[in-house]
């Protein structure tokens, strides 16, 4: 792994944390509870790589995407865009928005139904300072990039005239038209028809491979993460429980939660998924002390209920936050991803 050869880190997050204060149900005054939506998550979005974040609803993956897009301010942590630290409390600048773009889950909700596609594409261009005479050409170019061909056919349509897959391509085009370096895709395929999902995944893959975008792909579908991602991060209750480069995490899951997640996926090609791996009833409790997964964990030990496990290194680039691997060396996330840490340092200096 050579410093010169490894691609640059576009967006880097360190110890990103977001807490929400809520009331305890049934008690109107005082008693406040803090929900740890995202707890100490670090990740690097690297040029030309797809990083996938997998988790069930409520795991904090969407809050993470919104913090990276700076729509939600982190409670603590650091963000670095191309090596430049971003002041957490500061307002999001236009410059940041032109580098980091977010694509949301439901394209029908994220495009304005009373405006034509043209409007959705040209407005961000104008806001980001494109000349009025150029915007149509730029909008057409963006539509061509997402394989909506010929673009003239789509510019003057309304969102309801397009199918879900086409409209999701439009919202990706809208994100692309300001020439971002980082694309955050929050469940971009889960609302779409099965037959067009792969088309969108292949489009993201193409943007990553051919145009060297850094992509964060958020999903609850671990099979699609395996299909697309260069790095997979599994989140549970706001924490990263397992992460690996490549598909190691899916092929040889080590954390009991990842194992549960994978064995739950309907998989007709694997009869054992139906016969033996069927998980027992699980509770939905999140532990306040110790490992957050302990109440649901089939392998929970005494130590799990008292002490929060650190990250253990399974192998190079594969980290699991579970006491089962206490014999392995402890890993700091940055250490687990060596070539990226070096990049992080080089940008700092």
């Amino acid at each position, binding site marked *: 792994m050579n410093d010169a050869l490894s691609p640059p880190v576009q967006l880097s997050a360190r110890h990103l944390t977001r807490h929400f204060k809520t009331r305890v149900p049934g008690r109107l005054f005082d008693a406040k509870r803090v929900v740890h939506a995202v707890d100490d998550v670090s990740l690097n979005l690297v040029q030309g790589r797809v990083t996938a974040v997998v988790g*069930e609803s409520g795991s904090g993956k969407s809050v993470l995407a919104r913090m990276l897009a700076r729509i939600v301010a982190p409670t603590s942590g650091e963000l670095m865009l191309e090596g430049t630290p971003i002041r957490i409390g500061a307002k999001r600048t236009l410059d940041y928005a032109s580098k980091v773009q977010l694509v949301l889950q439901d394209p029908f909700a994220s495009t304005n139904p009373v405006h034509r596609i043209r409007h959705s594409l040209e407005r961000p261009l104008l806001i980001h300072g494109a000349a009025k005479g150029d915007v149509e050409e730029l909008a057409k170019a963006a539509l061509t990039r997402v394989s909506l061909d010929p673009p003239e056919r789509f510019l003057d349509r309304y969102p309801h005239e397009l199918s879900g897959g086409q409209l999701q391509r439009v919202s990706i085009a809208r994100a692309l038209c300001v020439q971002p370096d980082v694309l955050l895709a929050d469940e971009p395929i889960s609302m779409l028809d*099965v037959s067009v999902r792969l088309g969108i995944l*292949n489009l993201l893959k193409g943007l990553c491979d051919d145009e060297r975008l850094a992509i964060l792909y958020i999903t609850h579908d671990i*099979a699609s993460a395996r299909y697309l991602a260069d790095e997979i991060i599994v989140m549970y209750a706001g924490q990263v429980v397992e992460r690996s480069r490549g598909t190691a995490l899916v092929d040889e899951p080590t954390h009991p939660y990842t194992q549960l*997640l994978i064995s739950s996926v309907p998989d007709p*090609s694997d*009869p054992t998924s139906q016969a033996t791996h069927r998980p027992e009833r699980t509770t939905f409790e999140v532990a306040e002390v110790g490992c957050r997964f302990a109440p649901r964990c089939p392998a929970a030990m005494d130590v799990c209920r008292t002490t929060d496990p650190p990250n253990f290194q399974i192998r190079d680039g594969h980290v699991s936050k579970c006491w089962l691997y206490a014999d392995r060396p402890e890993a700091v996330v940055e250490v687990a991803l060596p070539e990226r840490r070096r990049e992080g340092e080089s940008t700092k200096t």
Partner: protein
Amino acid sequence: MSTDPLEMDEAVTTPTLAPLSAHSEFVLEIKNFSVDYGVSDNMVRAVNDVSLNLRRSKVLGIAGESGSGKSTLVYAMTRLLRSPGVISGGEVMLNVTSESDEKIEETIDLVTASEKELRKIRWSHVSIVLQSALSALNPVLRIGKEFDEVLKTHRKKMTKVERHNRAKELLKMVGLNEDRLDRFPHELSGGQRQRIMIAIALALDPELVIMDEPTTALDVVTQREIINELDVLRSRFGFAMIFITHDLSLLVELADEIVVMYAGEIVERAGASELYESPRHPYTLGLLNSFPPLHGARLELDGIPGSPPDLADLPTGCNFSPRCPFVMDRCRTEAPPLTRLGESDRAVACWLHAGDSPRQVPVELARRVPRSTPAVATLKGRS
């Protein structure tokens, strides 16, 4: 036969109850069933000439994307479809055992049944679980009240205490604590709410339960738990089930027989493992290849090109022809009928499998089902 459901109540004067001497093999028989939205010029045919049979205690899976007519089919079939949906033809015969002491088998045509007859059938013989449990449960009623109302309406002789006990029993059946009866829907998780919907659907011991995407809004772990739960409940109570979903791989695990719908028509019907091992319709093949695998090498998958069909603007000939990789001239002019393949019980609507097809059946669609070796062998070999 074609009538507006509202008109029908007055039109039908003679009840269509016909006692059967023999115990019918099928709980549900649908013949040439069609459903339209709107009338005359703006009419869209959402379900076109669908015929289906469902054996007792079996699971029929209906797979299809949005707009394929799968939900319209079950809503129309149970006469729950609202205007502008109109049943424009066909019959839906439901074979049920009557409530009376002698256990007489009755056959009821749901298409022509009166409101009064329907009221007797609904929930006690046929129940339905909808996709969104949050909108199916009344947000201002406690869960216990929902159970109470079902039992009060259909089991008039039950006392309040009996009803409460039955509700507790039902909750236990789906693995929930009985204290959930005092909760409101918003206090429960998505999975718990869907479990409650299933418990309510089973409250009157129906012969047929319809599940319309019951797990689509849930995450995989909860989905797995509910599917397992359904398995246990079904082997215990022996109800037949129609399970609708867009997730074909889930159906392969769950169903005995699967029909694949595209643009309101059945394009393929086969046993679950047959369909998975040896799809015969190009659309089925495309759907199966649309799910990235959990094992094996990471290969580039193509899915299905193009967009799902617009029902108001269907192509001539085969509806799938604009997206089909194996399209022939004939496909663009003539719509293929759903025909049986050889002696087997499976059927496909594709010209490739017609005897006089000019093109040889592509290898992907000609895979044989291995008789002795289990399903996995061929797949492992393939990947």
